[in-house]
C-alpha cells in the first residue's frame, strides 16, 4: 500500500511537470476554433463575444505588447495561431518570409467599407514587395484595422501652441528654450520611433548633409547608414540634458498628471490623454511625420481559414469597427461613407457623445492619408545597428557628481573585499601555525 501511494505521488508530480508544458491532451473540440493574436487592449471584448455567438466559433484570444514580441512568438512555425494584427513593417517582414496567406476577397462582403486611401498608400509605398521573386501587392495580404500618426503631445498651459508648432520635433530637444520644459520631456523607449524622431529633427534643424537632405522623405526615413546613425546618436546624447525619462508605457499618465509637459506619442494615445486633460494638444510637425496602420492577416499554416475570413469580415462591419474604435481610442480604417451609411454605427458614435461631423473632421483622428509628408516606415531588415545605437544612447549619462559617488563607493567596496581576503588569509595562517 505504501508503495502504491508513493508511486501515485510520483506520477502526480510528473503530471504536474507535463501540464506546465501545456501538453494538450483533450484538444478534440466539436466547435470550430479560431486562434486570434492581437495587441493588448486593442479590441472591444464584447465584439468577440458577439462574433462567437453569431458564428458559433470559439475564439481563443491572446495578446502581445510589441511587434517584436509577436514576431518572436511566430518563430515557432507550429504555433497555433490563425489571425494576427501586426503593424505595417511587421506585416512586410512576414510577407517577405512567405508566412502570410493571400486573402480570398471573394469571401469577404464588407471589404468595400475600408478606406481605399489606405490601401492605395500602402501599395504605393511597398511597391517593391516580392515574395519568392514574384512581385506582390501588399494589400492582398491584410485587412486594414486601425491607423494613426506619430507626433508630439504637449501641454498648452506651459508651451504656447504657436511656439510648439514652430519648434516641430525640436520641442523634444527644447529648442525654444522654455525653462519649465527642462527635464519634463518624455521620449519613447522604442528604437523605431526614436530613430524616426531623430532623423526628422536633424532634417528640421538643417544638420543633415545634402545627400540626405535631397532624399525624398519616404526614402530618408527608411534609410540607415553609419553616418546618419552617428548623427542621430549625437542628437540623442544632446537630448539627455532636457528629457525626464525614456518611457515604456507610463507616458500617457505622466502627461495627464502633468509630471511631463511634452512627449513623443501615437495619435491614438494622444487623443486618449487629451480627453483626460483639456490643456493637452497634439501635432504632427510640419516637416513631416510617420503614418502607420495595423491590419488583420492570416498565417499560411492556419488550420481555420474559413473562420478567420469570417472574423475579418465581421471586423469590417461598420458597427463593429466603430465599437472597436470607441473601446480603444484609435482611428478605425473604416471609411467615413460606410460609417455614415450605417444607422447602428452612427448610434454608437452618438452613445459616446460624438458629433459625427466633428468626429470625422478632427484632423488628429483623421489625417490626410494621401499627404506626401506623412510617410510609412518600413522594416529595417537588420535591426542590430539601430539597437546598438539606441543602447549606446541609453548607456551614456554619467555626470561628474554621479561619477564621484560611484568611484567613492567602489573604493569602499573594494576595500571591504580586500579586508575580507586579508582576514581569510590571516585565519588560514594561524590555523597552519596551530597545525605545525
Amino acid at each position, binding site marked *: 500500500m*505504501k*508503495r502504491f501511494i*508513493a*508511486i501515485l*505521488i*510520483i506520477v502526480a*508530480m*510528473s503530471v*504536474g*511537470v507535463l501540464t506546465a*508544458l501545456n501538453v494538450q491532451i483533450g484538444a478534440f473540440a466539436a466547435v470550430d476554433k479560431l486562434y486570434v493574436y492581437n495587441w493588448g487592449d486593442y479590441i472591444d471584448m464584447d465584439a468577440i463575444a458577439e462574433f462567437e455567438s453569431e458564428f458559433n466559433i470559439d475564439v481563443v484570444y491572446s495578446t502581445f505588447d*510589441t511587434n*517584436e*514580441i509577436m*514576431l*518572436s512568438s511566430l*518563430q515557432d512555425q507550429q504555433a497555433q495561431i490563425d489571425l494576427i494584427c501586426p503593424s505595417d513593417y511587421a506585416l512586410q517582414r512576414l510577407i517577405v518570409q512567405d508566412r502570410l496567406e493571400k486573402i480570398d476577397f471573394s469571401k469577404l462582403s464588407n471589404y468595400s467599407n475600408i478606406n481605399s486611401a489606405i490601401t492605395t498608400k500602402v501599395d504605393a509605398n511597398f511597391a517593391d514587395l516580392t515574395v519568392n521573386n514574384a512581385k506582390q501587392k501588399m494589400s492582398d495580404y491584410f485587412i486594414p484595422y486601425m491607423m494613426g500618426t506619430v507626433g508630439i503631445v504637449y501641454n498648452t498651459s506651459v508651451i504656447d501652441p504657436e511656439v510648439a508648432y514652430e519648434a516641430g520635433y525640436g520641442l523634444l530637444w527644447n529648442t525654444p528654450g522654455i525653462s519649465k520644459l527642462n*527635464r519634463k520631456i518624455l521620449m519613447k*523607449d522604442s*528604437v523605431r520611433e526614436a530613430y524616426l524622431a531623430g532623423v526628422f529633427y536633424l532634417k528640421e534643424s538643417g544638420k543633415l548633409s545634402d545627400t540626405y537632405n535631397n532624399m525624398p522623405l519616404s526614402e530618408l526615413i527608411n534609410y540607415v547608414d553609419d553616418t546618419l546613425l552617428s548623427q542621430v546618436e549625437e542628437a540623442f546624447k544632446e537630448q*539627455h540634458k532636457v*528629457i*525626464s*525619462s*525614456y518611457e*515604456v508605457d507610463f507616458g500617457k499618465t505622466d502627461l495627464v498628471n502633468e*509630471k511631463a509637459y511634452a512627449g513623443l506619442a501615437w495619435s491614438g494615445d494622444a487623443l486618449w490623454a487629451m480627453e483626460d486633460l483639456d490643456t493637452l494638444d497634439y501635432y504632427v510637425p510640419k516637416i513631416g511625420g510617420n503614418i502607420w496602420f495595423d491590419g488583420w492577416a492570416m498565417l499560411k499554416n492556419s488550420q481555420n481559414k474559413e473562420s478567420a475570413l469570417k472574423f475579418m469580415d465581421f471586423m469590417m462591419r461598420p458597427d463593429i469597427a466603430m465599437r472597436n474604435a470607441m473601446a480603444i481610442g484609435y482611428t478605425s480604417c473604416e471609411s467615413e461613407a460606410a460609417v455614415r451609411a450605417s444607422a447602428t454605427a452612427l448610434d454608437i458614435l452618438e452613445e459616446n457623445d460624438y458629433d459625427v461631423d466633428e468626429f470625422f473632421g478632427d484632423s488628429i483622428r483623421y489625417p490626410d492619408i494621401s499627404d506626401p509628408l506623412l510617410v510609412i516606415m518600413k522594416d529595417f531588415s537588420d*535591426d*542590430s*545597428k539601430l*539597437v*546598438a*545605437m*539606441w*543602447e*549606446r544612447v*541609453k*548607456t*551614456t*549619462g*554619467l*555626470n561628474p557628481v*554621479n561619477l564621484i*559617488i*560611484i568611484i567613492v*563607493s*567602489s573604493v*569602499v*567596496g*573594494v576595500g*571591504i573585499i580586500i579586508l*575580507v581576503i586579508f*582576514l*581569510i588569509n590571516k*585565519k588560514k595562517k594561524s590555523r597552519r601555525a596551530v597545525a605545525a
Partner: protein
Amino acid sequence: MKTYITNIGSKLVTKIKGFRITRSVFAYPYVLFMSLFVVAPLVILLANAFISNGQFTFSNFSDLVRDGASLKTLSFSILVGIITTSLCLLIGYPVAFILSKWSSGRLIVLLFILPMWVNFLIRTLSTRYMFEALGIELGIGTLIFGLVYNYIPFMILPLHTTLSNIDKSYSEAASDLGAHSITTFLKITLPLSMPGILSGITMVFIPTISTFAITQFLGGTSAHLFGDSINTKFEHQLYGVGSVMSLIMLALVLVSNYFMRKTNRGEAARNLW
C-alpha cells in the same frame, strides 16, 4: 525467439519487482523538471550563441565587441553591482549583527522579510512615485537606492542565520582572555560569519547586474544595465548576441560560485537556505 521474449519478459518482471521506493525515486520528477527547464534552455542558449543566419559562426561574439554598447553596459553594470553589494553589506551586516544579539531578533528579521511578500514591481513603482513626490530627480542615485532596497533582505537573511549560529562561548572566551570588543569582533565574529557574507554577496551581486525592470522605473535617462541590454536584444530578435550576453552572465555566476566554494571549504554552516 520465444526464449528471447520470455527472457525480456522475466527481466521486466524482475525490474518491476525490484522497483523500490528509495528516497532517490522521489527526485525523478525534479530531475525531469530540471532537465526540461534548466538544462535544455542552457543548451539552446549555448547553441544560439554560435548560430547566425542558420550557420555556425563566431560572428555573434565579434558583433558584441564591435557594437560598443554592450561591453560598456557590462562594465557599468558591474560597477553598479559592486556599489549595490557593498552598500547592502554595509547596511546589512550591522543590522544582522544586532539582530542576532537581541532576543526579539527573529521578529524584526520578519519585518525585513515582510516587504518581500509584496510584489517587487509594485514596491518599485511606489518608490518611484515617492521620489517624484519628494521632487528627487531619477538617476543613478535613485536606481541604487531601489536596488539596495530590493536586495537587502538577501544580504540580511544569510548573515543573520550565520551570525546567530555562531557559538557565543567563542567571543566570551576571547573577552575573558582580555580581548577588546573590537578585537573580538574582528578576530572571532567576522571570520566566523564569512560564509554568510559570501553567500550574501553572491545573492545580491548577480541579480543586480541582470536586473531589468527596476532600471526602467527608477533609472531615469542614464541607467541601462546588462539585464536591460539582454532584454532589448531578445526583443529585437537578435538571439545570437543576446545568447552570448546571457553566457557572459552565466560565466559570472560560475566564477562567483567557484570563489564561494573555494573560500567556503571546510567551513561549517553551509546549508544556509
